[in-house]
């Protein structure tokens, strides 16, 4: 019974946690600029992330270790150092974008300058982490995150044309502006295949004390949770495609995206957008802060655990405190949240091979995982992810600048 509860909770967590500032921005840009033509990127990214999350959870359940911990132990500190540094840098950028997202949502409803909210939002995020246990964080952000289902309801209410929507799942080349097309495609893949997601997931599984009996539950969570989660992202593309694109509105600024839900919900649409953005970003900010603290503590062999009292893992708590404070600086200094998001998504895509390679190597360790080591299906997907990540590493940052992605 407990496992079924965890399954339900895991699915809700994935739905609530899948949609963040990155997926929101890239989906709105994709739909507004290329209508349904980029739906395939979310579909492909989701398929790959299901496998990565499943592997990450399976690893944690069988070995009772989180990924950074195991990689350091297995390959040595010097091998893990480069992936750790690039992962931390990209996570830091993502944290800054999520803080920017909460600030922007508050700016939308109050009309006050975004910078004004940077420090209070950082303090709120920190307080939430300082006071709450892992399960409180998991449950509250994921349940509140269900508000993002408003995008799915809006997509249904718009009755999008089935033919073009289905055709969008088949990769096609753009009619014009190929640089922008590929910049958005790469950003979507960066947003969906967030390295922090599967690293965080393995630490969460250890926090939740998973064991081998959770392998099946983990698989169901990965498939159903990520699958349902991606529906919100797909819905955001559809809504932008039917609301913004026909009017000639492109998303060069979040103010433009904020109009997305006002056709489907004339009175509540604007508020729903702002609340969805704030909650999705708060959930992601908390997760990314924890992910930075988890990977740092595990890299240096410190005590860690969100459910521990901060006095018991002082260095772990200090890391997320410092990370949150530093990540609020770009917004405080007036950096545009959308440009920051596009840069963060490109950085996430660029660091993927660094963090995916040791992960895949570890998943093939039969001494450690025995019969739960990767089989040929998982390894085929892993090779696809590695090849794709190598391409993304080379093209993502140049495309973000050249493609006008932000």
């Amino acid at each position, binding site marked *: 019974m407990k496992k079924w509860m965890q399954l339900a909770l895991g699915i809700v967590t994935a739905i609530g946690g899948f949609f963040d500032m990155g997926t929101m921005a890239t989906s709105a840009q994709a739909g507004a600029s290329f209508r349904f033509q980029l739906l395939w990127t979310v579909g492909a990214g989701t398929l790959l992330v299901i496998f990565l999350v499943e592997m990450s959870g399976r690893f944690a359940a069988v070995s009772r270790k989180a990924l950074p911990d195991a990689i350091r132990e297995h*390959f*040595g500190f*010097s*091998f893990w150092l*480069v*992936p750790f540094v690039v992962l931390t840098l990209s996570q830091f950028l993502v944290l800054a974008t999520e803080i920017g997202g909460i600030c922007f949502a508050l*700016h*939308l*409803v*109050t*009309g006050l300058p975004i910078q004004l909210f940077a420090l209070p939002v950082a303090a709120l995020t920190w307080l939430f982490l300082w006071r709450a246990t892992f399960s409180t964080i998991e449950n509250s952000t994921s349940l509140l995150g269900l508000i993002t289902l408003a995008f799915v309801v809006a997509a249904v209410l718009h009755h999008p044309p089935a033919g073009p929507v289905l055709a969008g799942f088949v990769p096609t080349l753009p009619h014009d502006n190929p640089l922008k097309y590929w910049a958005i495609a790469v950003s979507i893949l960066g947003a969906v295949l967030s390295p922090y997601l599967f690293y965080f997931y393995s630490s969460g599984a250890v926090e939740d004390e998973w064991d081998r009996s959770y392998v099946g539950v983990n698989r169901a969570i990965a498939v159903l949770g990520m699958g349902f989660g991606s529906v919100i992202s797909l819905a955001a593309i559809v809504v932008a495609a039917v609301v913004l694109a026909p*009017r*000639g*509105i*492109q998303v*060069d*600024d979040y*103010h*433009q995206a*904020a*109009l997305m839900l*006002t056709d489907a919900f*004339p*009175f509540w*649409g*604007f508020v729903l957008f702002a609340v969805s953005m704030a909650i999705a970003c708060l959930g992601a900010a908390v997760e990314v802060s924890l992910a930075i603290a988890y990977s740092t503590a595990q890299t240096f062999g410190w005590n860690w655990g969100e459910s521990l009292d901060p006095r018991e893992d002082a260095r772990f708590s200090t890391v997320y405190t410092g990370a949150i404070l530093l990540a609020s600086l770009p917004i405080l200094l007036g950096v545009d949240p959308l440009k920051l998001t596009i840069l963060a998504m490109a950085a996430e895509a660029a660091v993927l091979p*660094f963090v995916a*390679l*040791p992960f895949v*190597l570890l998943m093939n360790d039969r001494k450690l995982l025995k019969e739960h080591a990767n089989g040929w299906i998982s390894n085929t997907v892993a090779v696809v992810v590695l090849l794709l990540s190598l391409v993304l*590493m*080379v*093209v993502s*940052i*140049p495309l973000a600048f*050249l493609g006008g992605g932000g």
Partner: protein
Amino acid sequence: MPSSLFSLERYWRTFGRTVVVLTAVAILACQEKSPEEELLKKVEPVGSWLATLQMLGQKWTANSVPASFVETTVSAARKEFKKAAEETAKSKARPEVRAPLRQLVSEAEAAGAGLLRAVEAGDRPGVAQGVARLGALHQRFEALQGPPPP
């Protein structure tokens, strides 16, 4: 030793070369564009912002967005119009391309300011007029975005 698989130096060398090649290709690609094409590309967001302000006016009239949101969005649009005006002023495009663009951007700026004034005054007919004006400007902009004269 796995670390040899993961040589940071080798990665950065390959990455650096690729960035240089891609940047060179992009610079060459940009150089191939005429000043007229380059200007039209740079001011492209103006059309999107005109459409945004038009929708914004309609949504304010329908009580779907608050006045404070109109204010911040118009402010964001005006920044973009200002940027477009600067690009137009410093462009080497031919005057027959530059002049109508400069005129349109200046009218867009005025239309944005007019929309904001009407919203602040709670003047619904004024907002409707502003929306119509923005719609006409958007159409004119779309026409200008067609292929430049030979």
